[in-house]
C-alpha cells in the first residue's frame, strides 16, 4: 500500500474510511493535497489584485490591460500590441475581439475591460449613455467598404450594381453589426436590391464564406481584404458610393487599469500607431 502513489492511493483511502488511521502514509498525502488546494485558491484570489498594476506606483504602465476591440481590428491591433508591449515591457495586453454590439452588451453586463475600440459611434454612444466611459471617445481610424470576391474575381464583379444578380451567392454581415449596417446603407444609396444567402454574425464570418468558396461575394472592410492575405480579392467601391466606418476608442469608467488604458489609447492615436493601422488597410478619419 505504501508503495502505491497518487490516485490509486487516494481512491483506496475513500473506500476504506474506517481504517484510515492504520495508514499514516495516506494521511500525509491527504494533508499535502489540501495544502496544495489552499495555495491554488490563494494564488487565484490574488490574481485580480495583481492585474491592476503596482499599487505603489500609480503612473506605471504595468499589469494587465484588457482591450475590447471590434473584430475588424484583429490583425492591426495584434501588431499594435507587439509595438506597445515593446515600449512598455511590464504590461500584458489581452484582447477580446467580437462584433462591436456584442462588446457593448458585454460591457453593459459588467465585463471587466479597460479600453473599448468600436467599429461605429452607435455602440460607443450606448456605452457612453450608460455612464460607462471615463472620458470622451476619440475617432482613431476609418475603414472603407470593399466588395470581397474570390481570388482573381472569376465572376468579373465590377461594383455594387453587380451584386443584384439573383444567381450570385451573396453573403452580407448582419445589419445588427456595423459592417452590415454600412453595407445596407451603401446598397440602398446606390439603388441596388440584393437577395443575400446569409447574414453573418460578424464581418470576418462573412469574409470567410468567400474565402472558403461557399459565397461568390460579400461586402466587407478594406482592412479585411488586407487581412485575408490573398484568399479573397477586393473590388473597390467608389468614394461617392462608400459608407466608411469610423472607429471611436475610449477608456472605460470601470477600467481596472486606467493608467495603462490611457497609455494604450495615446499609442493608438500616435504616428506609429496610425502607421500600423494604415499598413492593415485602414485610412485616416
Amino acid at each position, binding site marked *: 500500500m505504501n508503495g502505491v502513489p497518487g490516485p490509486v492511493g487516494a481512491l483506496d483511502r475513500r473506500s476504506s*474510511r*474506517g481504517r484510515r488511521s492504520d495508514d499514516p502514509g495516506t494521511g500525509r498525502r491527504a494533508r499535502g493535497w489540501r495544502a496544495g488546494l489552499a495555495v491554488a485558491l490563494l494564488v487565484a484570489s490574488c490574481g485580480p489584485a495583481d492585474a491592476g498594476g503596482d499599487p505603489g506606483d500609480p503612473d506605471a504602465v504595468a499589469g494587465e490591460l484588457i482591450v475590447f476591440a471590434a473584430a475588424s481590428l484583429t490583425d492591426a491591433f495584434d501588431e499594435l500590441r507587439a509595438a506597445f508591449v515593446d515600449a512598455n515591457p511590464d504590461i500584458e495586453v489581452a484582447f477580446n475581439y467580437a*462584433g462591436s*454590439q*456584442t462588446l457593448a*452588451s458585454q460591457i453593459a453586463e459588467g465585463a471587466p475591460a479597460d479600453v473599448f475600440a468600436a467599429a461605429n459611434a452607435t455602440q460607443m454612444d450606448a456605452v457612453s449613455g450608460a455612464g460607462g466611459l471615463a472620458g470622451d471617445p476619440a475617432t482613431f481610424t476609418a475603414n472603407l467598404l470593399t466588395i470581397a470576391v474570390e481570388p482573381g474575381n472569376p465572376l468579373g464583379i465590377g461594383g455594387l450594381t453587380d451584386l443584384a444578380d439573383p444567381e450570385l*451567392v451573396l*453573403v452580407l454581415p*448582419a445589419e*445588427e*453589426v456595423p459592417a452590415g449596417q454600412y453595407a445596407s446603407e451603401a446598397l440602398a444609396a446606390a439603388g441596388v436590391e440584393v437577395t*443575400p*444567402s*446569409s*447574414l*453573418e*454574425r460578424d464581418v470576418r*464570418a462573412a469574409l470567410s*464564406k468567400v474565402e*472558403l*468558396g*461557399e459565397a461568390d461575394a460579400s461586402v466587407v472592410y478594406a482592412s479585411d481584404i488586407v487581412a485575408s492575405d490573398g484568399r479573397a480579392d477586393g473590388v473597390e467601391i467608389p468614394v461617392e458610393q462608400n459608407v466608411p466606418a469610423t472607429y471611436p476608442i475610449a477608456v472605460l469608467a470601470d477600467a481596472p487599469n486606467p493608467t495603462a488604458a490611457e497609455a494604450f489609447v495615446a499609442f493608438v492615436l500616435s504616428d506609429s500607431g496610425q502607421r500600423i493601422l494604415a499598413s492593415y488597410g485602414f485610412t485616416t478619419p
Partner: protein
Amino acid sequence: MTDLAPPRATSTSSGVAPPRTAIVLGVVGFALLVLPLVSLTLRTPWTRVGELITDPVVLQALRLSLVSSLAALVVSVVLGVPLALVFARYDFPGKPFVRALAVLPMVLPPVVGGVGLLAAFGRRGLVGQPLAEATGITLPFTSAAVVIAATFVAMPFLIVTVEAGLRMVDPRLEDAAATLGADRWTILRRVVLPALWPSLAAGMALCWARALGEFGATITFAGNLPGRTQTMPLAVYLELERNPEAAYLISFLLLAVSVAVLVALRDRFLRTT
C-alpha cells in the same frame, strides 16, 4: 457497513452521509447550474409576450426550429435506429472504433462539426462539389443544411440510447419468434420494437432537444438568414444585439422545452434512488 459512522438525521437513504465540505461544494455547484436559469426566467418580459411572440423574426425562427428539428428527428430515426441495430446485433472487425466515430459528434465542439460539414457538403466540399457539378444543388445556406447540421449533432444521442435499449431486449424472445417461423422483419416489428419502445422514445426526446438547441454547426454550415436558416438559438444570438427582450423570450421558450423533455424522461433521469 453497520460498524461505520452512525446514521444521521440528514443521511441519504443508503450509505453514509457525505462530509460537510462535500455538501457545501455540492450546493455551490447546484447554484452555478440553476442560477442562470432562474435569472433568465426573471428577466423574461412577461408583460410583452403577446407582442414579442408575433414579431416576425421570433415567429419565423420558431417555425423553422420546429420544422427543422422534427425533420432532423425523422432522419435520425430512419438512419440511426438501423445503425443502433447493427451495433447491438453484429460484431465486425474494428467495431469499437467505428462505434466511437459514430457517436463522436456528442463530444465534438459543434462549430468543428460545422467546419467539417462545409468541408464535406460545401460548394467546394468532398461530396458537395461533385454534387453541385452534377445536379446544380448546393447545400450551404439552405434549410436542408439546417436539418443536416441538426442531424449531425443529434443523431448520436438516439443511437446510444436505442443501442443500450436493444441490449436489454431478451434475445430468447427473438429466438422463440424465429422458431415459430417469424421472418426478420416480423421479429423486428412484433418483438424487438415493442420491447424497445421506452428506449426509442427516450432517445427521440433527447435527439429532438439536442436538434432544437443546435447552434454552432448550424451557423457555420447553414449561415444565418431569417426564415430560411435562422433557428431559435441563432435568433437568440443575433436578437440579443437588436432586441434583447425577444432574445430573453426565445431563450425562455427553449428552456421550457428542455424542462418538458426532462420531465418526459423523468423515469430515466429523475429517479430518486
